[in-house]
């Protein structure tokens, strides 16, 4: 029985392989998405949590390496 699922959940996130979401371009000729809900991985809650984690981890690694962030 797992009393504390935090370790397993954290390990299973596997955010090292996660690609950051690219911002959409705003040009006139840019590809437009439909008005409906976004499809694919970005609509998954776990994916959005992983994106937040990625930001924190990057900042943490910067702190580890002795670099300051703004």
């Amino acid at each position, binding site marked *: 029985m797992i009393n*504390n699922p935090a370790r397993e959940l954290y*390990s299973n996130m596997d955010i090292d392989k996660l690609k950051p979401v690219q911002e959409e371009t705003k040009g006139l000729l840019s590809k437009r998405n439909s008005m409906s809900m976004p499809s694919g991985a970005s609509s998954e809650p776990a994916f*959005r949590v992983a994106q*937040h984690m990625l930001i924190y981890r990057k900042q943490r690694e910067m702190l580890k390496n002795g670099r300051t962030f703004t």
Partner: protein
Amino acid sequence: MEEPLLDAPIPGQALTHELGARPWQSPPQYSTVDEAVDYYTSRLSTPEATSQIIDILKMGIPVTSLANTIQMGSIMDGKHSIDVGMLVLPLIVEVIMFIAEQEGIDYDDGLTDVKDNKTNEAILENIRTQMKEKAGEPVEEEPVVEETPEEPTGLMARRA
């Protein structure tokens, strides 16, 4: 004769409380993961929360245990559901580790399994023996200590 336990709760007594009176029985305050993420990031970044987290980590409590306690407390307070708590839990771990790095303290992340790192000494000894046998080296056997019978020292004992 065994006395009846009159102080013990009646079976089903836990279910007799009014439904919805407990925080976890009412709809959660934050129903989506995004709301829960906002809640935790803002809550954990306050100076009071940060200092408390630092104190707890300095005591040697692992980050994973602390994160689990925080999210369980929020479930009990009716902040979010168990499902949302499970999804947000890795983020809480990451935020706590970030705070610890920011403060520059040594902390136990709780991510390494203690059981896995421990090597059974008996297994190691068995491997060593097998390797020695393969190499043709004589296997060192522990010297057998012969037990010497104690001589009776009583008054009626037979004398040599």
